């Protein structure tokens, strides 16, 4: 099997693992980790196919994906921290009310 095929299957495997983590884990931080993994798998694909042709479009697109992923992680962690302060849990299943019980 050629190198590009193996790398493509690696990217697909990483994406599906991220999907599995997002589906199955209960903690909100684990969901965030799964999303980061999926974004990185997409980056791997972009860089891989960019290396097959001239030009740098794929690499620059991956750069912007990294920027957006950083923003998403920062805001996500902030929201999780705030939610933990309020509800004393970071498991989304246990948060079923918008407001605290009176």
């Amino acid at each position, binding site marked *: 099997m050629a*190198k*590009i*095929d*193996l*790398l*493509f*299957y*690696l990217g*697909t*495997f*990483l*994406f*599906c*693992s991220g*999907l*599995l*983590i997002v*589906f*199955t*884990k*209960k*903690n909100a*931080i*684990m969901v*965030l*980790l799964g999303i*980061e*993994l999926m974004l*990185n798998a997409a*980056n*791997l694909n972009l*860089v*891989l196919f*960019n*290396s*097959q*042709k*001239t030009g*740098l479009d794929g*690499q*620059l697109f*991956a*750069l*912007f994906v*990294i*920027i*957006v*992923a*950083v*923003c998403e*992680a*920062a*805001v996500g*962690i*902030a*929201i*999780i*921290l*705030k939610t*933990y302060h309020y509800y004393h849990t970071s498991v989304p299943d246990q948060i079923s009310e918008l407001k605290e019980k009176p």
Partner: protein
Amino acid sequence: MTLEDIILYLFMGSSVAAVLVMILNRNIFYAALGLLVCLISLSGIFALLQAEFLAVTQLLIYAGGVLILIIFGIMLTNRISGKSLQTDSHNVFIGIVFSAGFFGVISFSFYNTELSPVENNLNIVNHMGTVGTELMSTYAAPFEVSGILLLVCLIGAALTASSFKKNLNG
């Protein structure tokens, strides 16, 4: 098999192993460390695919910044002394079905695809300089917009995580 191939296969194996640790281990902290190993391996793969700038960025931003942030989040939202660093799983069956099905569909469609022949990418000698020039000329508008996005994100995250609520109301 050249040395470059051996290093590439090592990086691929370590990233797969780290992802398996993330999936199978129930400890959140170990999962974060697994993601760290996976990101460092991906950075090595980027470097081998002639994307040096992206490899360095990956190391600096992900391994240095995002993972530290996430580990801080884990430390602040879980009681370390108790057993609540563990996380449970749910929807295991449907998750495995969905992700394995997705893997099967994508792999099948890639297997049946005829790739266009490889163009010669070696005529660009100075990758790092070319990335900088492209970023400042062709991609100037997205570059500026991403700067604004980072600023908005910084202010939003700081305001969300801080406890200024009473002061803002009064």
